[in-house]
């Protein structure tokens, strides 16, 4: 069994919980549908966003140079990080310069990717994730299971118990309002004590040198406007050419993610406030190499809305952690093999290729086609399990030889009253665990045709 299938198998053992998880995410998908339906121009918006991102990827070097120049004019300090280690060291240096020991961070998949929290904690620097969902999983010492809904896999009773232990809330109280208020009080103090604030970036604007961050809680703003140093970590692919392009993307992002017409806060950071510092760390970490892979480059268009996770029938029934990668779900399954083909060679197979992810994607990434292409790539690199390749090679030989194919089928049915083995890809054991095989018909279509038409 592959990593994903093992973890999925384990997840599904609790069927009631699987149903709960599935329904919660399906509900988000339905909210997305209702929101998209209200805009007659929805499909045009998707096509436009896709083309803007194509333009960005095709002119990325120039946009990055322009972004840096404009940001510098605004008094922003810009850094370039080759990889995760580089990114962490740059942040480490900034914090050291300011003798910053207490850090607040708002949601950023990039810092997850770079394992920034581990890096800072090793230096005895306190780093607090301030998005409520992120804080919950941080207290549980778990990675997020979703890019927008990081704690979607956790029940409120579990949050109640966690907060009781860590934040001293009353035992047995799992009322979401009560727990949220407790987190608010806990985090307010963290914001006001913070020596520095770190955020991810939803969009960088080449024309203005600014960054845009979208939240519902206001946690990015609470951090950035309290602390004397604000640091924004941005993947190279996050740029948009001009401010006007934000119109397209802000309209799509929250609607795709949760069905909201926009997040509550859409914050545009251009310049540091007087007496403070603003840094932007531009991070590559494999993206510029990924850009060179023609079949796979357009996954760099992703705006991390999570819609492909909400719609994916496999994700909903196996949970984000079954993907064992920073970004889970369909988009994670095509991004992760770029980083490590061997480690993530199971992920492109965690899909039926149903295509719902591609149709729901606001920037029209051909996710399911890339899943198919990654499978070819994995076979080419000898990373496919022998238990898959050997029976399929035998099946191929049968299909290549019509007379063998015809007689094997006839033989199996005639002599054994059975189904021909080559048709079930050696997977009878797994197939038959919870499913019956069809009954073998007395004669196949070809035999019927010979008798009834081929006179």
């Amino acid at each position, binding site marked *: 069994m592959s990593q994903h*299938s093992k973890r999925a198998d384990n997840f599904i053992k609790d069927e009631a919980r*699987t149903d709960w998880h599935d329904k919660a995410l399906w509900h988000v998908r339905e909210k997305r549908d209702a929101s998209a339906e209200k805009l007659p121009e929805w499909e045009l918006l998707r096509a436009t966003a896709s083309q803007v991102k194509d333009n960005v990827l095709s002119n990325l070097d120039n946009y990055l140079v322009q972004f840096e120049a404009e940001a510098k004019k605004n008094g922003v300090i810009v850094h370039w990080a080759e990889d995760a280690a580089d990114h962490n060291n740059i942040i480490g240096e900034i914090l050291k310069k300011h003798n910053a020991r207490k850090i607040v961070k708002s949601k950023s998949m990039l810092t997850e990717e770079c394992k920034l929290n581990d890096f800072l904690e090793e230096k005895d620097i306190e780093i607090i994730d301030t998005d409520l969902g992120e804080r919950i999983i941080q207290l549980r010492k778990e990675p997020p299971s979703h890019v927008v809904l990081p704690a979607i896999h956790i029940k409120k009773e579990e949050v109640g118990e966690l907060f009781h232990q860590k934040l001293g809330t009353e035992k047995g109280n799992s009322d979401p309002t009560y727990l949220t208020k407790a987190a608010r009080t806990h985090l307010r103090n963290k914001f006001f004590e913070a020596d520095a604030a770190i955020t991810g970036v939803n969009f960088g604007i080449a024309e203005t040198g600014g960054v845009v961050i979208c939240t519902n809680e206001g946690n990015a703003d609470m951090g950035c406007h309290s602390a004397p140093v604000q640091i924004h970590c941005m993947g190279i692919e996050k740029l948009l050419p001009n401010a006007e392009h934000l119109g397209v993307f802000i309209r799509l992002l929250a609607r795709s993610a949760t069905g909201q017409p926009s997040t509550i806060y859409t914050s545009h950071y251009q310049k540091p406030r007087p007496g403070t510092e603003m840094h932007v760390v531009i991070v590559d970490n494999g993206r510029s190499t990924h850009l060179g892979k023609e079949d796979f480059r357009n996954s760099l268009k992703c705006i991390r809305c999570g819609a492909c996770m909400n719609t994916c029938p496999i994700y909903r029934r196996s949970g984000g952690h079954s993907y064992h990668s920073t970004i889970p779900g369909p988009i994670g399954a095509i991004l992760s093999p770029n980083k490590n083909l061997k480690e993530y060679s199971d992920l492109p197979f965690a899909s039926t*290729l149903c295509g719902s992810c591609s149709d729901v994607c606001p920037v029209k990434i051909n996710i399911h086609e890339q899943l198919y292409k990654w499978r070819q790539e994995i076979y080419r690199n000898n990373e496919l399990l022998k238990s898959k390749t050997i029976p399929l090679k035998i099946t191929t030989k049968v299909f*290549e030889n019509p007379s063998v194919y015809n007689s094997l089928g006839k033989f199996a049915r005639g002599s054994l009253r059975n189904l021909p083995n080559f048709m079930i890809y050696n997977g009878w054991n797994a197939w038959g665990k919870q499913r019956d095989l*069809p009954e073998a018909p007395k004669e196949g279509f070809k035999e019927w045709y010979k008798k009834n038409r081929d006179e």
Partner: protein
Amino acid sequence: MKVGLFVPCYIDQFFPEVGIATLQLLEKHNCEVIFPDQQTCCGQPMANTGMEQEGKKIYNDLAGLFAGCEYIVAPSPSCVHHIRAHYDIVEQTKEIKNLRKQTFDIVEFLVDILKIDHLEASFPHRVGLHQSCHGLRGMHLGKPSELMSDIPSKWDKVLKMVDGIDLAMLNRADECCGFGGTFAVAEEAVSVKMGKDRLADHNSNNVEVLTSGDMSCLMHLQGIAKRQKSGPKIVHIANILNGDQL
């Protein structure tokens, strides 16, 4: 009109009645049907597992068999979609080009090429349609629920021509059944859970007969229903359109 009949491997081996209904449907609509006996498979099982390079001979052989046909028709959107979308890895010979361009699913062929407006068929049952993913999202035989564009359903169109049919609305109109080729065995737990959930949706909407254009999805759903000893009867759409009775 000379039409080549392509009966995919699993239909030939497991569900010959689907091939027979497809053949009879074409004959009823005055097609001159030829059936090359040397056909086997479209190569999708290997390709979806990453081994498309191994399937090149199968692709070329299949194209060669149907070289003389004006149209090629199969009762399986999944196989048709595979031929159209993935036969780009072999040299685009005249035969390959013809196969990719002229191969149709039976429902698509009835609607788009034969442009039928009625059927001699009656099926007085409550029917739930499983919109198989390759037909739905790959070929737009129906409107994917994610898309906000206007795509008329070809499946609905032909089913509505059948007398007495009562089409059920489902809670989730187009969720995948979880078959997915070798996915069905490689990700057994998720695959079966998806199938169970699909069946539960049909059951809760009092579906008596579950139909689809793709027999592979139906084989998976039927396998689960049989094991559970409950659930709707499973019938391919070609059988319903052909007027076959339960």
